[in-house]
């Protein structure tokens, strides 16, 4: 018997063949995917879309962005990856919203969906809406916006700071040229001179000392902290309403991280904008943000104000995440608390709670259905079977019954 046949029939000991796909399966999946992708791409590539189609109303006019039941899927040849699977949260004007989660939990894809930058054609926004309100109070539906209209928002009203400043700056152009380009593109009636003046003003704003020198240098000549400052300056140059900071300090040292965080906070005050801060560092979250969104495997499992999340975490994953970080409060314990296991395979997600296999408090019901969002306070929500619909703890009730 050939190796392939043995594999198929599960005859090799220890090889888990539940994820094994035959060539035939793969061809079938890819054919199905092509059909779906074609449909979405056709919709996206329409020309002359009337404005009424993508104008909507905000649920709450004090928000800049509202995510509502967003679904972003990737149609790959091995199956559909539901990267973002029903995410809803708001970003209020002038506030910092932090999104935490492990790698692969969909936090970056959420932000990319907002920028219409999801890697196509495999990645598609399948369902849900993202509403964005501009300075004049006009409200756009980002998921339905045509590409040419999106160009006017992306980089101007919604700016992004990426994790790795070296790969997101172009190595063959000078810092100044790259910064001027942004201003020239987005400001009406900008001349090369006014663009330069604006760039230099922004570099000054982010605390760079020798501005002229930096303006005329190439990205490789700068240190990591300096590059990240340039990225922030570039993001600020068009007075954005929302800055998306995707792990802005992960690649930096602690002392530089402290500088950059301080800078982000100052800058937010100056432009009176909002920040969506994506990170996996709970310390950064505690320090910077007003609202926290905790994501796990493409879904929001808990959200609330920073006080609620840190003082009164509800979901076992949030609690575990906080306990597993070595810090002064648990240094006396001999062993560090750790969440067992790992994130489930993103293809073939189970239909029960995604955290079931790793949860200490898992119950019968957890393996049957996905828990609904439970409201603890007007701002605090968590998706867990441990709690009743009115927010009381089920386990305590059981104790009383005994």
């Amino acid at each position, binding site marked *: 018997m050939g190796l392939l046949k043995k594999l198929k029939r599960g005859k*090799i*000991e*220890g*090889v*888990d063949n539940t994820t094994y796909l035959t060539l035939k399966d793969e061809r079938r999946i890819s054919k199905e995917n092509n059909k779906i992708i074609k449909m979405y791409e056709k919709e996206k590539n329409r020309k002359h879309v009337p404005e009424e189609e993508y104008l909507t109303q905000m649920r709450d006019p004090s928000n800049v962005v509202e995510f509502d039941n967003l679904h972003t899927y990737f149609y790959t040849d091995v199956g559909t990856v539901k990267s973002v699977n029903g995410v809803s949260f708001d970003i209020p004007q002038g506030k910092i919203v932090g999104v935490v989660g*492990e*790698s692969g939990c969909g936090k970056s894809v959420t932000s990319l969906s907002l920028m219409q930058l999801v890697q196509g054609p495999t990645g598609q926004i399948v369902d849900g809406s993202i509403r964005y309100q501009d300075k004049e109070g006009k409200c756009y539906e980002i998921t339905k916006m045509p590409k040419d209209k999106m160009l006017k928002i992306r980089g101007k009203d919604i700016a992004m700071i990426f994790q790795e400043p070296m790969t997101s700056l172009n190595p063959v152009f000078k810092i100044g040229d790259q910064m001027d380009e942004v201003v020239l593109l987005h400001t009406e009636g900008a001349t090369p001179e006014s663009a330069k003046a604006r760039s230099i003003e922004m570099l000054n704003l982010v605390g760079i000392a020798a501005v002229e020198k930096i303006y005329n240098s190439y990205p490789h000549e700068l*240190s*990591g*902290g*300096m590059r990240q400052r340039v990225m922030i300056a570039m993001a600020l140059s068009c007075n954005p309403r929302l800055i998306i900071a995707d792990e802005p300090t992960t690649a930096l*040292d*602690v*002392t*530089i*991280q*402290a*500088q950059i*965080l*301080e800078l982000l906070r100052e800058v937010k005050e100056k432009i009176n904008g909002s920040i969506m801060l994506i990170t*996996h*560092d*709970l*310390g*950064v*979250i*505690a*320090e910077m943000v007003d609202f926290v969104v905790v994501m796990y495997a493409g879904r929001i499992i808990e959200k609330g104000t*920073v*006080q609620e999340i*840190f003082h009164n975490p509800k979901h076992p994953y949030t609690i*575990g*995440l*906080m306990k*597993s*970080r*070595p*810090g002064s409060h648990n*240094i006396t314990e001999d*062993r*560090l*608390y*750790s*969440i*067992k296991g*790992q*994130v489930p395979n993103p293809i073939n997600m189970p239909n029960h709670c995604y955290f079931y296999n790793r949860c200490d408090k898992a119950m019968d019901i957890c393996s049957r259905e996905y828990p609904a969002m439970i409201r603890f306070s007007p701002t605090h929500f968590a998706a867990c079977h441990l709690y009743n619909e009115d927010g009381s703890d089920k386990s305590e009730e059981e104790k009383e019954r005994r």
Partner: protein
Amino acid sequence: MINDDILIVKNLKKYYPVSKISLGKNRAYVKAVDDVSFTIKRGTTMGLVGESGCGKTTVGRTILRLHEVTGGKVMFDGKDLTEVSSRELRKMRPQIQMIFQDPYSSLSPRLPVGEIIGEAVKEHNIVPKDQYRSYILKVMRDCGLQPQYFYRYPHEFSGGQRQRISIARAVALNPKFIICDEPLSALDVSIQAQIINLMKDLQEQYGYTYLFISHDLSVVEYISDTIGVMYLGSIMEMGDKKRIFANPMHPYTKALLSAVPVSNPDVKMNRIILKGDIPSPINPPSGCKFRTRCPNAMPICAKKTPIFKEYEEGHRVACHLYSQD
């Protein structure tokens, strides 16, 4: 005589020439490691912290002689590693192992897990041939890897599992001393805790000595017994973990500790924010290397290099602030 110090590093230096062409004697060097000395006691963990580019990785690699040293001594179990012949060094290699930072690039993609762990075991004849398989499976079990992973390839594993494989590879050789070069920085928080616990368990069980290189202060605080703080190729402060965290003396250590974000929204840190970046190691500042960013810099700092001396028992600092008294 049983020596309690497993590793003594004395005045270790590692310079890299900047250009191959030298004009006269003014050849420029990057002083990656400049006069570093420390000792590690058997069965303990020493943490080495510092910003990127401060030479902490180079220290680890020169101890293993993955880079040839420029000067100084590395005494391991009474033998000077810088002077042993390559044949002898090869014999000693199983005793000193290394766990690398990036579990994605440090495992061969072409070998199954069992081979990765067992390659060096075969090479150094750690166990007789007939016990080989059961020995590897035992090591895998120790490191939390299931036996059916024996035939799988690294690409099938997540980052945390791969780091377990790297640890198993190092542990399989029965080492006395393991150099861990940022083993956690590529992992997620919930996985980091698993790996930290694994490393602690193994240490308890087999009495390993670790040199733990990291830039994450809270992890170092948790895992180490002694801590050395490096800046631009030199150790600025060294001592017992509790002393360093309770009473940091060097301004750089103070700044480093205050820069760590605290997971409590109510605590507003009194933060010392350092200005600017780490200077170029080709042309480090005269006198004290930290003076360009130091909030307490004095005129003497530019003239004289501070001596690394003991301030209290087991706590040494190189700073002019404490040299008067």
